[in-house]
């Protein structure tokens, strides 16, 4: 499964549970209340486990975690290196 689909599925199944049934790839995850502060922590933990990549503290910024697209773009850049 491609990065975007994996992230999308995790957010929908685990973080948006009981909040939203569908999310678009460009939807503002924090702004729309789909995920909260603990959700961001879970998301980073999931990325680190699933992709075996440690997200540096300086990369945990809103630009990289704003939406499914933003997260997958960030990961695609980092995982290629």
């Amino acid at each position, binding site marked *: 499964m491609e990065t975007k689909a994996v992230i999308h599925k995790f957010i929908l199944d685990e973080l948006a*549970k*009981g*909040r939203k049934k569908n999310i678009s790839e460009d939807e503002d995850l924090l*702004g729309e*209340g789909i995920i909260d*502060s*603990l959700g*961001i922590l879970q998301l980073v*933990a999931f990325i680190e486990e699933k992709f075996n990549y440690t997200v540096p503290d300086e990369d*945990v910024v809103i630009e990289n975690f704003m939406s499914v697209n933003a997260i997958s773009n960030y990961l695609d850049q980092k995982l290629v290196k």
Partner: protein
Amino acid sequence: MTVKLLFLNGVAIIFAVYHHAIYWAVTAIFHWNDRFVSNINSQTLLTANPTSLFLRITDEIAGVAVPIFLFVSGYFYAFSTNQKPFKQNIQTIYNRLIYLIPPYLFWSTITVFFRILEGNDYTPGKLVRVYLMGEADGPFYYVPLIIKLILLSPLLIRMLNKTPYIVLGGSFLLQFLSSIFWYFSTMNLSVPEWLSNFAFLKNGYLASHLFWFVLGMLIFIKRDGLLKVIRRYRFILVSILLFFIVLSQIEIQYLMNLSQKNWINSQASFITKLVYSLFILAVIGFIDNLKTSPNIQFIGTKSYGIYLSHILVIEICARLIYHVIPFLLGQTLFFLGILVVVGIGTPLVMMSIWNRFPIKQFYSYVWG
């Protein structure tokens, strides 16, 4: 560090449950001692001995739970609101409150219902205080407090970006001033007139707790530089922390002797607040060396639901033990262990069951 904050949140909720379980351990020692035979009695807690020191020190350290929650929240509200337009911040806050307030109202109502069954009366005015001030039970104060801090977060982030150390220093000063009143009341002394101008600071928890939220925000904004400094001085921080833990115990014993009180809530002491701030900084200093546990991280993800529901769970458990197996009340450590396991395990089981039925669509409105 980011993932370790989830672990830290898990540790904090275990501490919170332990801290509230101690209330029942102390209740058993002081008020239920006709139900068991034990070497522990009310005099045990009044003097410095291994049992009382263990309970006091662990109670004091476990009280760091709320400061940790505030620190982690501050860190992530800085993440959410930093560099974003004000309008977008308002939308983020609105959408956050939608999932923060309903679980609080739900569990406050359940708690009030339980208290009515116990024979308590609620006037309309008292009910207003229950929901607005978080007075359904002691720990509920946290939710109105975090709501106020979330509402203040767009303003705080702007102030921190402009004058970070003035804002941090200001919030520290507020914490100091709000603590002073506690010393006067504990020692049964009247407050000097010049100080009574600041009496408004003792009301609520905003002045006394703002510092930890601001600290979390500041560490996010300045994380590159500050984390390096904290890591460099981490052993010094631990040494200062140990010194203040000892000092705070001497202070509590002194205040207990002076006031002739059986038990003092050490969280209100300024030295204890310093212990909490140093504890957080020391943990941050060693955070890369922390061995995390997936189970504790999992508990960390469920912390809000556990926090709101554990209060009734441990009360029911303590009362059941009182009626069914009272000898356990005298086995303080064992009794505490049972309350902590039940206080965390029962909400987790209830959340899991909730998710297996069609009511799962309301999960976020009940468990956060």
